[in-house]
């Protein structure tokens, strides 16, 4: 990796120095020397096909292409001799002999490289006659909602095909024909949705002309007229940087992404690129609503806020502050989460504040805090690319975190990383794996203990690391000693050989990185699972170093931030315990209020407290428990029974339907603030458009409410809130709007000069010594039996996001993911007479839903899998609300179920 030696050479008479392996083009760009190019994209292997970047190199017989030619010591390069300029002009004129686009009607006008160079070189666009048009009536994009390919505008640079192959690794696109008949297409001209295409739109992103374009953007504005606002994507926790392209009508027309910017380098997934229709949806809430006689009526802001303040005030007066709970939101900004928990803790006076992180990574926060002292992803996304081994367990990475999936694929395909996948299903990333272990769900501890057994018995452990940096090793060793791979095989059904092989690969690689997600956390043994992974990493010294670590991938855009900012019942912002006296004092002083030092209730506990009559009022900001919580019948009953429910959201969600008052808020595209992504990077969110109707910023609403509750809260803008956060939360101490204007900073960032932290626990763990935990294997709560012979698991799919509130507004997404389904193994289906696509009912002890069957071999026999995004046939009607005793996370991943055809 470090063969970067300085190479001295001359470009246009100027002495410059570059690094080994660098191309002339890359070096020239570094030095501000412009060499026109069309087929180059820094994300791709140079192909040298457009030939526009030709330059002269002394000693070469003919001009060379700067994008492919690597620099060498003493090289003399000329980029703008007369001959070269003439040659480029001829090449451009040749390109115009196949490019029949007219800029006047082209959407790409203003962003088109061909247009730009054509102008710069003052070409004659009729120098060479146009061959006959290929009659672009039908092609592979015909009828596809996502994109349009126009071969008349295509310059055959192949960037779309290469990005699909080299970055996305989907290989959906190819050239067809040859010579001047060359066109982009799919294999056998299949419609795009019948191919391996994931609709990521990377092809559009790299197209240098208007040949590939978002279908929905056609005619809604030319690139030259767009206002572009850099912000952070509002979907998953990767935190992709996006540019919202807004036209004169205040509409988001396209989503683009800058190449070279952390963390996504211009790459986006289908949701980020095509999932923004919800922003401009006519279903958005535009005015406060108050429920009168069972019906919502529009109301003024004063009316609505007064009503809430009055009801919460009464409840607090009658039943005490702990009879009220607040659910903050992983979708909202850091500033909003901070203000929300502050309002609950001060104006209400309770620690009953939580948010949906409880349902996804509560066990991560609990487990990693216990083992390492900090409950977050230890290493950065970029480091994954250079890991020697990647162990993915319980993460459907390419579907739930597609852009991190790209880093994994890059590591395997281009950098030789060995990938181990442990997942009950044959998920997409298994294609790239050296080894796939399809363990029975809920048996992760057994699997990992057995891997550790192998590592210990084969002397592959990093004893020096353990001795120097860890404690409690012997306790863990005692448990693992007897846990042979053969015993694990009985429990997990993964062969002992495979377990041995996995252990060896993981333990002997130069660096090993663990990636996990909800397959690990959403169990009654969630915390145990996380502790086991921490054990495994410490055992081999794979933590506190580059490209190693234990890396939970966070599911929501700001679930990391919501946790960081104290939207949790046990900690103030910055993971400072509410039960710690000194900290308690610090916050009472800073906020000027009397605070409760009693731990509050968690999400599911709040719902259960309603049943017990202990919780009377609930204030929700951007959460949708009526679809996202387990055992929905029970949750919905609580929402119905609660004395008072206020909801602020962008849509009238399934939950909002139960509310007494609903407040319309801004979505991420309409406000300023910050999100913290899965790698702890605090990134800017910027207002690109105005919100609809009377909608307001969440933090402003919360401040107004707090003020009405007798606790005045006032900020001029989000930046001020972040400054207050920095003053109270040491991990955010050095972070401000100003510092993260261009690139986000990863916490801990304790002061203004701190560069942020790429990976945690470098020289010592946050808690001092890393702590091993002896973890015994415990089976899931429910087992298959005669009545419920299957085991049901739930999860995400690529196209949809969470409760579908946002993604299901997108025609692009709906064309490929119209409704829910249940996956069942071929043999089970055959036995039950179920065929693919057939209507089936799935039942558990908690409920029954109707959906359609997807018959597949990607799932094990005896198992069912349902995505949880769909309100028709909602999977959470079926899930169990048994909780992990420490983290209180429900066991979404395993429950007993039955299925029958209808």
């Amino acid at each position, binding site marked *: 990796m470090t063969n970067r030696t300085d190479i001295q050479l001359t470009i246009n008479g100027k002495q410059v120095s570059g690094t080994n392996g660098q191309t002339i083009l890359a070096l020239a760009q570094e030095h501000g020397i412009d060499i026109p190019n069309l087929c180059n994209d820094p994300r791709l292997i140079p192909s040298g096909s457009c030939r526009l970047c030709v330059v002269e190199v002394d000693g070469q017989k*003919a001009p060379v292409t700067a994008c492919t030619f690597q620099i060498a010591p003493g090289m003399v390069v000329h980029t703008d001799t007369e001959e070269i300029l003439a*040659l480029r002009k*001829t*090449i451009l004129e040749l390109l115009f002999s*196949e490019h029949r686009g007219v800029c006047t009607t082209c959407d790409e006008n203003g962003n088109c490289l061909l247009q730009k160079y054509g102008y710069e070189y003052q070409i004659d666009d009729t120098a060479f006659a146009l061959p006959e048009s290929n009659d672009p009536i039908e092609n592979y994009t015909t009828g596809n909602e996502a994109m349009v390919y126009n071969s008349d505008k295509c310059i055959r640079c*192949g960037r779309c095909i290469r990005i699909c192959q080299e970055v996305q690794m989907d290989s959906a696109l190819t050239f067809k024909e*040859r010579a*001047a008949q060359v066109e982009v297409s799919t294999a056998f001209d299949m419609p795009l949705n019948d191919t391996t295409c994931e609709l990521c739109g990377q092809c559009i992103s790299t197209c240098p002309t208007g040949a590939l374009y978002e279908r929905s953007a056609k005619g809604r504005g030319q690139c030259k007229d767009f206002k572009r606002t850099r912000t952070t994507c509002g979907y998953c926790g990767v935190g992709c940087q996006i540019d919202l392209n807004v036209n004169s009508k205040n509409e988001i027309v396209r989503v683009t992404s800058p190449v070279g910017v952390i963390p996504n380098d211009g790459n986006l997934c289908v949701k980020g690129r095509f999932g923004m229709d919800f922003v401009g949806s006519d279903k958005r809430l535009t005015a406060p609503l108050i429920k009168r006689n069972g019906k919502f009526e529009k109301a003024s802001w004063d009316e609505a806020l007064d009503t809430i303040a009055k009801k919460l005030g009464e409840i607090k007066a009658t039943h005490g502050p702990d009879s009220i709970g607040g659910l903050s939101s992983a979708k909202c900004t850091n500033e909003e989460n901070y203000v929300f928990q502050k309002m609950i803790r001060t104006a209400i006076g309770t620690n009953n504040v939580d948010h949906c992180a409880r349902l996804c990574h509560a066990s991560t926060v609990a487990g990693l805090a216990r083992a390492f002292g900090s409950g977050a992803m230890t290493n950065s996304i970029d480091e994954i690319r250079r890991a020697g081994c990647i162990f993915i367990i319980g993460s459907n990475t390419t579907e739930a975190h597609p852009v991190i999936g790209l880093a994994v694929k890059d590591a395997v395909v281009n950098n030789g990383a060995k990938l181990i996948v442990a997942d009950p299903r044959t998920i997409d990333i298994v294609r790239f794996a050296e080894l796939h272990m399809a363990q029975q769900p809920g048996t992760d501890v057994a699997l990992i203990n057995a891997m550790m057994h192998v590592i210990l018995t084969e002397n592959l452990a990093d004893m020096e690391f353990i001795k120097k940096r860890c404690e409690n090793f012997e306790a863990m060793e005692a448990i693992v000693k007897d846990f042979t791979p053969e015993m694990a095989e009985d429990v997990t059904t993964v062969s002992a050989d495979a377990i041995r092989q996995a252990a060896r690969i993981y333990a002997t690689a130069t660096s090993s990185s663990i990636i996990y997600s909800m397959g690990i956390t959403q169990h009654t043994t969630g915390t145990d699972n996380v502790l086991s992974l921490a054990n495994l990493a410490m055992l081999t010294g794979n933590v506190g170093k580059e490209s190693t670590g234990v890396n939970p991938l966070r599911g929501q855009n700001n679930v990391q931030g919501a946790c960081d900012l104290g939207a949790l019942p046990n900690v103030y912002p910055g993971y400072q315990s509410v039960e710690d006296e000194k900290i308690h004092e610090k916050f009472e002083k800073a906020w000027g209020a009397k605070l409760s030092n009693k731990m509050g209730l968690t999400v599911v506990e709040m719902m259960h407290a309603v049943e017990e009559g202990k919780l009377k009022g609930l204030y929700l900001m951007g959460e949708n428990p009526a679809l996202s919580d387990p055992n929905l019948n029970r949750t919905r009953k609580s929402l119905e029974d609660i004395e008072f429910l206020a909801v602020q959201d962008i849509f009238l969600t399934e939950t909002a339907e139960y509310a007494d008052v609903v407040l319309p808020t801004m979505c991420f595209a309409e406000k300023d603030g910050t999100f913290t992504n899965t790698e702890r990077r605090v990134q800017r969110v910027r207002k690109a458009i105005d919100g609809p109707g009377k909608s307001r910023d969440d933090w402003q609403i919360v401040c107004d409410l707090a003020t009405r509750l007798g606790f005045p809260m006032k900020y001029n803008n989000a930046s001020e809130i972040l400054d207050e956060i920095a003053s109270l939360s040491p991990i955010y101490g050095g972070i401000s709007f100003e510092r993260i204007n261009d690139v986000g900073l990863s916490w801990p960032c304790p002061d203004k000069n701190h560069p942020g932290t790429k990976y945690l626990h470098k020289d010592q763990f946050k808690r001092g010594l890393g702590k091993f935990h002896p973890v015994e294997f415990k089976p899931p709560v429910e087992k298959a039996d005669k009545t419920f012979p299957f085991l049901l698991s739930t999860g995400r799919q690529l196209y949809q996001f969470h409760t579908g509130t946002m993604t299901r507004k997108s025609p692009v997404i709906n064309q490929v993911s119209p409704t829910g389904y249940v996956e069942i193994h071929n043999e089970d289906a055959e036995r039950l007479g179920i065929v693919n696509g057939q209507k089936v009912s799935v039942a558990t002890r908690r409920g029954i839903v109707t959906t359609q069957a997807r018959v597949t071999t990607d799932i094990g026999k005896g198992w069912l899998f349902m995505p949880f995004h769909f309100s028709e046939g909602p999977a959470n009607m079926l899930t169990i609300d048994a909780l992990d005793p420490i983290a209180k996370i429900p066991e979404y991943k395993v429950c007993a179920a039955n299925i029958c055809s209808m």
Partner: protein
Amino acid sequence: MAYRTHLMICTGTACVSCGSFDIKKELEQEIRKHGLEKEILVVTTGCQGFCAQGPVMVVQPDEIFYQKLTSEDIPELVEEHFLKGRPVKRLMFTPPGEETPVPNINEIGFFQKQRLIALRNKGLIDPEKIDDYIGRDGYKAIAKVLSTMTSEDVIKEIKTSGLRGRGGGGFPTGLKWEICSKSKDNPKYIICNADEGDPGAYMDRSIIESDPHSVIEGMLIGAKAIGAHQGYVYIRSEYPLAISRLEIAIRQASEYGLLGNDILGQGFDFNIEIKQGAGAFVCGEETSLIHSIEGVSPEPRQRPPFPAQSGLWGKPTNINNVETWANVPRIIIRGAEWFASIGTEKSKGTKVFSLVGKINNTGLVEVPMGITLKEIIYDIGGGIPGGKAFKGVQIGGPSGGVVPSSSLDLPVDYERLVEVGSMMGSGGMVVTDEDTCMVDIARYFLEFTNDESCGKCTSCRDGSAAMLEILTRISDGNGKEGDIELLEELGRAIKDASQCGLGQTLPNPVLSTIAHFRDEYEAHIKEKKCPAHVCKPLISYRIESEKCTGCKLCSRKCPANAITGEVKEPHVIDQSQCIKCGICYDVCKFNAVLVETGKS
């Protein structure tokens, strides 16, 4: 069992397509009929080179050469020659313009001046019998290499011999091997490029058809030299006969322990796999060829890195073409000095050319480097048919260039050809005469390369289309002032800006014809004339009434019914109906049909 006579019948693709297998059957039947089956053996050989005279057969040891045989000739031939001892004169070859047939193959001009190294076994062995090859010192070279030579010795020998790549580029073979052998990465691969794309050249096919083991043995030696254990022959699927003979040869070599593990007990392993190409011209380019073997789109990629550093599956790979490989065993047996003694200063050994076009003796010829064009065209090729004037010869296939008649004394080697704007290339030689239009021939080759461009690079894809468009309008009579200069400018740009050999050379036929025959281009553009009377839009046919006898032959033959006239009355061509096929001109016995060119 010893036979008194061997009948070496050619079963190369050309002779097979003219019925040589039927002739073989007929021969054997007649031989049996006369009870000669214990005295005369019919042997099927690969291509013997004199393809236009096929089917051909050589009677050994008499060295009598028979040609243009048909099944009907066989009873007479067997009875007269083999029973009665009277060779059949009418089936022998009579040089053009002469009347006496030449019975002995070694006295025929076409064969006389050839020097055979790559084609040394043509006509002498049955390519489907490994014993025949072994009988002619086959596999002696690999035995020598494995038992007495190191890799360095082999590379040194090949370097000293001066052998250069016969695929057209002319890169020194020994040096290529050395670079690959020094490459640190492993495993290494050997590829035989048998993707002969030039439609006018077929020496590689012919070598495989006539002597496949020479290629296998060459590859074995190369493999030993660079340390490869797996080889591929990339061959176009349009060559079924060559593929089948190669398959047989690989099978037989494996059975004899000459391929596989522990070859000749010397601890060396090597296997060969055949990969069939689908016939794209660009696959002859080595990086495209490698892509094709890998199963991805056969587009070229920028070099460096060269295949010797990073080739097949990213591993060091040595590619040579068929003819190069076939030279290798002979060099090992007879020594580098012997090989280097043949040829010119920088071009050693021989080169196989396919001699086609307006020439009397069409076929494959192997000649020593440095032989003059005149010797090839007149002594071997027998000159131009019909006493027409020689105009030029397109050498090197569609990527080559035309060498004009003024350069007839040019000694043929790599450097000289490049100096006159042509190249060795595929070794195709298309001879043209006064009736050939140089604009038309340039357009013909451009049509081919434009169609075969893979379409990856702008300069080649759009450049060839633009050049073709200009050439087409010139030959259609729509050429514009400045078109020649535009072609030159474009040609230079395409050469300068293209990534692979296809683009870099495709302007050659145009640029070289402009260089040597600019006046013909000017006549097309300025006077709307095609001096060679080829470009149809620029010519018209007219019947001279004084000469026309009204025989009706032309009007009967005219496919467009454009000719009218009463018997014994002068006929007239209706210009609006005439499709300018020239049949009337060809059939008229009174020279009454005239071709005219110029503005009509």
